[in-house]
């Protein structure tokens, strides 16, 4: 009886997960994050930066989900494979030795949001900032992970391509 009550309480708590207290607080790393996600371009032409970003995203196979040129933002996404050899081998071994089947991560949706703004202390330059998210789902369509992508190299690659497309130099923010 005691165990039933315990299991029930655990279920009750798990069913109504609380909001993490820091969900709406600026993280201590927010300044460093912003710098990693931003580059300064020597132009005030926001349309040029947005249009060049669209062409880079199209080159990379993304589809635009939303744009607002007057607010200087756009959001794009694409689905790519999330298959991971180690995980699949693990599942094959699990199936071979126990007869149980598991689910492997199959797809991931990548979302990129780009925002262009004026630079407060430099009237001749603009700042572009991107943020990238990943939504991983498995072979039965269940979402297994939702995270922000924080690898600086991926941000750097995007800005390198954007600088080329806009014929401008991307400088650290």
């Amino acid at each position, binding site marked *: 009886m005691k165990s039933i009550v315990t299991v029930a309480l655990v279920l*009750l708590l798990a*069913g109504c997960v609380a909001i993490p207290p820091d969900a*709406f607080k600026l993280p201590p790393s927010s300044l460093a994050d912003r710098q990693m996600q931003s580059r300064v371009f020597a132009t005030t032409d926001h349309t040029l930066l947005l249009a060049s970003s669209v062409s880079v995203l199209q080159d990379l196979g993304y589809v635009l989900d939303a744009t607002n040129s*007057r*607010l200087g933002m756009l959001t794009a996404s694409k689905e790519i494979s999330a298959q991971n050899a180690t995980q699949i081998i693990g599942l094959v071994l699990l199936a071979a030795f126990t007869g149980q089947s598991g689910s492997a991560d199959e797809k991931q949706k990548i979302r990129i*949001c780009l*925002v262009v703004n004026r630079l407060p202390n430099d009237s001749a330059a603009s700042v572009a900032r991107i*943020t990238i998210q990943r939504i991983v789902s498995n072979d039965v369509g269940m979402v297994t992970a939702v995270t922000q992508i924080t690898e600086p190299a991926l941000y750097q690659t995007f800005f390198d391509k954007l600088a080329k497309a806009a014929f401008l130099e991307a400088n650290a923010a």
Partner: protein
Amino acid sequence: MKYPIGISIAIVLLVLTGCSTPPTKKIMAGADQVELRSYQSRGFDTADKTMMLRTVIATLQDLGFIVDQADEELGVVTGTKLAGYQVRMTVSVRAQGERQLLVRSSAYFNLSPIEDALPYQDFFTSLEKALFLTAHDAG
């Protein structure tokens, strides 16, 4: 320690019903509107709606959100944060008189609407930092 069977049944029933409501009941219903609206709203001493919307977008990016859509004319921005959980938030900006803007945010944590004051307070604190303006409670 022994639990009376009644308590166990009550807890199991709570588990089954505690976090669920009939699927259609919530379509046109919300929380206690007056109190919730006051948590969700702040007045700001500026009339520059575009600047406010841009600052809201910048704050959402600072907090790890991706902007799903934004409409300058309507003054709305919707964003999603993914960090092992999902938060979806809509922020609306409306003129309040000639010199003020009313900013209202409403957010979902996973599948439930956020109805506590604290997350909204944290959001406005983050927004204020970005604005360098003094916010005061909306009436």
